[in-house]
């Protein structure tokens, strides 16, 4: 509108188009960051390769069925966290940082599962122990919280649903898993390297919501 015109809604002198656009863009940024419980836009610490992104998204499901975030004003998130991997005495250690950006109202992890890729020789069955390690309340050492045993008899992606101990660790923002192969199959069977085969955890998270209201 012309500089001397009035705002249609409130009758104040209208802004010139350039100022109006800047105001609206700032409003859009603020609105999105507030709804994501972020104080400012994230600066990426470790870029994720397109191959890893594509692989992971093929496994990301749609929004949880029947989820009605408005029902108790909680908001549902699905988070994919790629592992930082390390090897220590023939055991593979996977570290995940499920960041607690969404600290407003607290994070409740409702489900967590590990996705990893295995390349096995033909007609081989491989037993894998997955140990969940957590930080003790007072010390900085990792202690065993629980472990899962699973048999793998085919190459490809495998999913292991993790229990409440791992979910609690994710809620605290940091999860450590140890993959301990049983039997003679070499550790190198679990493909950790390679952008398209990085292990990752998928966590279904709710922020805010009814249980917080009860707690208050």
């Amino acid at each position: 509108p012309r500089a001397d015109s009035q705002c249609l809604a409130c009758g104040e002198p209208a802004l010139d188009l350039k100022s109006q656009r800047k105001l609206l863009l700032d409003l859009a940024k603020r609105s999105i960051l507030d709804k994501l419980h972020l104080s400012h836009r994230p600066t990426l610490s470790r870029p994720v390769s397109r191959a890893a992104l594509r692989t992971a998204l093929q496994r990301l499901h749609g929004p949880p069925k029947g989820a009605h975030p408005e029902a108790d004003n909680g908001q549902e998130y699905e988070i994919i966290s790629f592992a930082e991997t390390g090897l220590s005495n023939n055991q593979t250690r996977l570290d995940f940082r499920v960041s607690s950006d969404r600290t407003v109202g607290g994070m409740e992890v409702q489900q967590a599962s590990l996705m990893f890729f295995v390349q096995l020789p033909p007609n081989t069955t491989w037993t894998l122990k997955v140990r969940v390690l957590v930080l003790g309340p007072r010390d900085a050492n990792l202690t065993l919280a629980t472990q899962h045993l699973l048999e793998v008899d085919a190459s490809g992606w495998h999913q292991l649903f993790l229990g409440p101990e791992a979910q609690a660790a994710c809620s605290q923002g940091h999860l450590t898993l140890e993959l301990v192969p049983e039997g003679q199959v070499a550790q190198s069977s679990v493909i950790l390297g390679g952008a398209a085969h990085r292990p990752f955890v998928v966590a279904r998270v709710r922020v805010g919501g009814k249980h917080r209201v009860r707690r208050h």
Partner: protein
Amino acid sequence: GIDCQGGSRMCCRQEFFVDFREIGWHDWIIQPEGYAMNFCTGQCPLHVAGMPGIAASFHTAVLNLLKANTATGTAGGGSCCVPTARRPLSLLYYDRDSNIVKTDIPDMVVEACGCS
């Protein structure tokens, strides 16, 4: 609801698309490419209170209320141009630890406007 065209002064929905590349957010927001931050603007004279986007019966009820009020000399309260239909915004983005996050933010996109 009605979309704003030209210099329409009545209550309508103004479309406003925010391109994430234009604001330098395309590196951390994976999908979608932008956000339709539509908003409601325009005037709501009393004879259209309760109009577009709200059931006609509501409009009739409001008019009857106004007739009753103006009969006793007190004019009814103002009517505002507000969203009457909204939908969620689905976002796929990287958080500060480069995790991939998917979430639906409810009521983020205004689909229609009407007079309260």
